[in-house]
């Protein structure tokens, strides 16, 4: 089975080899093209979702009306679109993008398909911070809730980063510690809920459902500052995530400083997650399934996978928000609940399809 070991003039052998490797290259070009098409498709899907989300509502608009409204023609419709639907949408885009990317990075650097931004306990930390703010200072400035949520998310992240400093701490240790921290914060949040007076309790519970309705432009600016700066860095490091997924030794022998990459990625992912959840509440699940769906769509290479995962996050959150507004209209269901309702069946369908294809 060793073609090159046959004796013969070198030139002839190279030619014979070229005959065999050209088809391989052609196949790869085709695959790469298919991946790019899938990514472009996702982009179109996301844009269509955005438009649909702007049009849909108690007072419906056609796309033309929406564009006129966005341009600002001084009518009430325009005011409504710019003051209500647009911020809601912007928040959704930011949160979906952030959670999708963060989930993808978490799965790569923790080498775990179950990992998500929530695995390290970051979101539970945020939820606890928010609950604490609502019970301690119910009447304080509205910024205290997201403020404390961000603070506790980052505190949890700092703990996870500290864990990476332990010598011999494998990625499983990180995940286990993260899950433990998650349960600790959930218990503390439950404790607060148990002790809270009725009024605060409903506020806390409602916060934890996750909602895009709380966003104003100020909040969006803060979320953008937390989410967007890390995005270019993550995209730039895409080839390194391919390597670290295959194990630290392999990655190191391919020229990657695995310790530094893992630390920086956890830090980036934590800040992104904090930005996504501090104003929207705990929108779970997107960070877990968006990367898996993206993997099925564009393959496992992070150069395509990362943007695809971010875009799918956006698509999922917009669709979930749309469904939440549409199903029991005029009642609006929280987006956190709807992401699971809409996402799980679709995700199962994908999983079953993949199993069938494998067998």
């Amino acid at each position, binding site marked *: 089975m060793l073609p090159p070991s046959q004796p013969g003039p070198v030139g002839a052998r190279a030619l014979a080899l070229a005959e065999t490797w050209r088809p391989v290259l052609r196949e790869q070009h085709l695959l790469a093209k298919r991946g790019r098409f899938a990514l472009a498709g996702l982009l179109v899907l996301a844009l269509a979702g955005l438009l649909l989300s702007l049009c849909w509502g108690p007072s419906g608009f056609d796309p033309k009306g929406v564009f006129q409204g966005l341009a600002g023609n001084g009518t009430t419709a325009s005011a409504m679109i710019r003051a209500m639907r647009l911020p809601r949408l912007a928040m959704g885009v930011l949160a979906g993008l952030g959670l999708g990317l963060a989930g993808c990075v978490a799965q790569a650097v923790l080498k775990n398909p179950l990992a998500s931004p929530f695995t390290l306990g970051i979101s539970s930390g945020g939820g606890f911070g928010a609950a604490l703010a609502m019970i301690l200072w119910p009447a304080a400035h509205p910024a205290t809730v997201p403020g404390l949520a961000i603070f506790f998310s980052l505190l949890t992240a700092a703990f996870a980063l500290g864990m990476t400093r332990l010598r011999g701490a494998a990625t499983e240790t990180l995940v286990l510690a993260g899950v433990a921290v998650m349960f600790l914060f959930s218990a503390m949040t439950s404790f607060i809920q148990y002790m809270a007076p009725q009024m605060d309790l409903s506020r806390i519970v409602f916060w934890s459902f996750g909602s895009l309705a709380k966003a104003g432009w100020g909040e969006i600016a803060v979320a953008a500052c937390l989410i967007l700066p890390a995005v270019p860095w993550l995209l730039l490091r895409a080839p390194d995530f391919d390597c670290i997924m*295959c194990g630290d030794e392999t990655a*190191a022998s391919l020229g990657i400083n695995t310790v530094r990459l893992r630390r920086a990625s956890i830090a980036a992912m934590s800040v992104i997650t904090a930005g996504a959840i501090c104003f929207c509440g705990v929108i779970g699940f997107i960070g877990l399934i968006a990367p898996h769906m993206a993997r099925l769509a564009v393959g496992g290479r992070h150069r395509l996978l990362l943007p695809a995962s971010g875009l799918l996050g956006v698509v999922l959150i917009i669709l979930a928000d749309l469904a939440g507004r549409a199903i029991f209209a005029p009642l609006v269901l929280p987006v956190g609940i709807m992401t699971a309702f809409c996402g799980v069946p679709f995700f199962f369908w994908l999983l079953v399809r993949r199993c069938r294809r494998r067998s």
Partner: protein
Amino acid sequence: MRLTASGLSFSRDGRPILRDVGLCLAPGRLLVVAGPNGVGKTTLIRLLLGLLPLEAGTIRLEDRDLTRLSRRELAKAVAYVPQGGTPTFPMTVFEAVLLGRRPHLSWRPGAIDLERCAMALCRLGLDDLAGRDLAALSGGQLQKVLIARALAQETACLFLDEPTASLDLRHQLEVLEMLRELTRQEGKAVLASLHDINLARRFADDVLLLAPGRVHGFGPPETVLTVDALRHVYGVDVCCLQGDGMTGFYPVGPSQ
């Protein structure tokens, strides 16, 4: 590129594993590291790759101190084939081999990178498997994929950790033929740890025989791998078999 190491020591939890190990790996030569389980073969390879901190000793790549090279520079000089193991996430054979181009490529793999990968795949007879998922491969195929990745990395040195561990007779021979060919035709310096004394004897240019805590011998296989040495190092009596111009060892039983 010539790699020289001297006085290497390493201990784990206060227990010395390697003491005063030295070796020299020249271009165009195949060096086999042999020794009983737990004697530190993998540890030695990790030290030489800069994956573990040196306690004492020096490793030089030509005239440069290996421990001062950046990971990227090192990855351009030395490729590593770890013991098998598939990644957590699905990955095709071609993608796995393309990782070998990481030290050379910027963000996007260029035409040259793709071409080198395709060539490496064909060289190992893997061209039909390029689109296959790694998890669907046999042990022998997976080992060849990892070697193809190391070839695509285009380094002067190649380290392999027990490349024949899970392979059948034929694949063992194929892999070692391949390694010898790489040293002869491309002048690569290859270091492999092996358990099979007979393969070591047949294919190696030099053998480093490790005994617990010391180097038992370093040199050409016929002087290092002797009946006496095997008894001392492995605690096994062997008899020497000769035929077809080759020498082999047959284990008789544990020595008294």
